[in-house]
């Protein structure tokens, strides 16, 4: 019974990781490196878009990813009764 609960929690955690890490890969390796030449044809103000992702955008997204993760996990902990504050 307890073990079932833990398994569910872990699987949901893995699902979050898969989604967040896909975004992590997309903004850095895909936008900032693999597709940089194509994205550089698009401009935002003085920035070429690919260059902007490589030197600015990816970092902003990284920060957001961690804070989204914190939020999701805190919610998940509560849902499954793994929240330490309420213990």
């Amino acid at each position: 019974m307890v073990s079932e609960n833990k398994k569910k929690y872990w699987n949901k955690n893995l699902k979050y990781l898969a989604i967040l890490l896909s975004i992590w890969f997309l903004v850095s390796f895909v936008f900032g490196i693999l597709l940089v030449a194509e994205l550089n044809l698009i401009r935002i103000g003085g920035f070429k878009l690919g260059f902007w992702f490589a030197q600015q955008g990816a970092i902003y997204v990284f920060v957001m990813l961690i804070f989204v993760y914190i939020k999701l996990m805190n919610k998940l902990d509560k849902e499954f009764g793994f929240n330490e504050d309420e213990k």
Partner: protein
Amino acid sequence: MSIQVWTWILVGITFTLYIGIAIWSRAVSTKEFYVAGGGVSPLANGLATAADWMSAASFISMAGLISFNGYDGSVYLMGWTGGYVLLALLLAPYLRKFGKFTVPDFIGDRYYSNVARSVAVFCALLVSFTYVAGQMRGVGLVFSRFLEVDINTGVVIGMIIVLFYAVLGGMKGITYTQVAQYCVLIFAFMVPAIFISIQMTGNLIPQLGFGGADENGIYLLDKLDRLHRELGFAEYTSGSKSTLDVFLITAALMFGTAGLPHVIVRFFTVKKVADARKSAGYALLLIAILYTAAPAISVFSRTNLIETVSNQEYKKMPEWFGNWEKTGLIQFDDKNKDGLIQYVADAKKNELIVDKDIMVLANPEIAGLPNWVVALVAAGALAAALSTAAGLLLVISAAVSHDLIKKMINPNITEKGELLVARLAAVVAVCVAGYFGIHPPDFVAATVALAFGLAAASFFPAIILGIFSKRMNSEGAISGMIIGILLMLFYMMKFKFDWFGGGTKEDWWFGISPEGFGTIAMIANFIISIIVSKFMKAPPKEVMEIVENIRIPIGAGEATH
């Protein structure tokens, strides 16, 4: 007041502050010495992690590197920040739940083997020593340029300061000095960035300013691309490295960041799992402030440098030019004897060599900012170098006193004895680091960048598999770590130090640079670990239970032996 007087004042104030904090937060138990007692708040830990992480390389060298490499420099920006996403999502919460003092502790217990522990101790020492030598060099550089003392004296002063608070305070002392050091270094980095951004683009925020335009409405990046084309350099926003290499270097830096023991150990200092996640978030946010401003500084200083020197009379160069010439970090050779400075990509015609490391330090002078700003940058650079050096020294001392002595050689050592050994190990480590700072062997500069490859090739897979694969056993992890680190060492020695027959860029396997090879060695580690583990028996039941247990955040308890 002159730059020198300002520097003495600011360096004096900040050093007094660090020493004061060290005295206030002395460590009296091993727990305080290794993990600051385990009760650091997430914000304080985020601040300390950020300072721990941002080294002389981030503060002094990175913007300069980007300045000279343009788009290619993006590998550092993405690599050294993206690793925190991996840390926060894949490592920090579980390692905190595991609740031990060091990274070799985790490897040794999870893989129920002192062989695994020894391999981990070896990797931790190798990575940390290569890294710390570069920090002491950075301290010496700042002292020699701004305080006009001998570079060796500078290193010794830095050693004494670090010695004082790392040995006295352990992790507790380091944590709270790092909080102060973060504030000093970020202030010192951002003030000149904001000044110059206003000067060049009228925009208060450097991160936006470098996408802005000058007074003639020409975008700064377009202007720089044009200047680069005219002088024969690769276009700033395109770079010249192959896509494969950029990809692999970025990956090696990211996975290496997530595998660096001095960063990981910071997450052992918070109270609970949720706090470990939160402090990773704060850490990256605080790091991102510097990392998004650095490429702006790169563009400003590159443009400023070219406009100040290119085709200008040597005799009319401003004062900073001569000052840096004295240190040998700017060299001018009037090849065609016309009295003008030709700064071009063609090595035969180029007359000016500018060391990458001086861009951040010289930037405020090049832009003509007030003297106190120049001095502030010096104090900031020292904060960055000292905070990282201290964090690394603690990993070294803990690896010796805790993992080697307490866990393997003499398990009966008393708490007091262990603490004494830890302090002695820190003293020895400072001296070794200082020695390398004063007599930098050629390989130091090369290996600092490669420390990431080593960390990625050794620790990252062992830790990840230890958490995410219950079936991973000691045979798999040990063979993976050994093959990974040997492969990385081999490639590095062959192509960086010319051993094993050496080789040039043309001989690189598939055009992969030694910096990017860490990713390949890491993949090899993963594959070998998984294959070997399949053929060997599953880990004992207690170990599988440990893995089950670290996946659930509740009941983290306190870090224990």
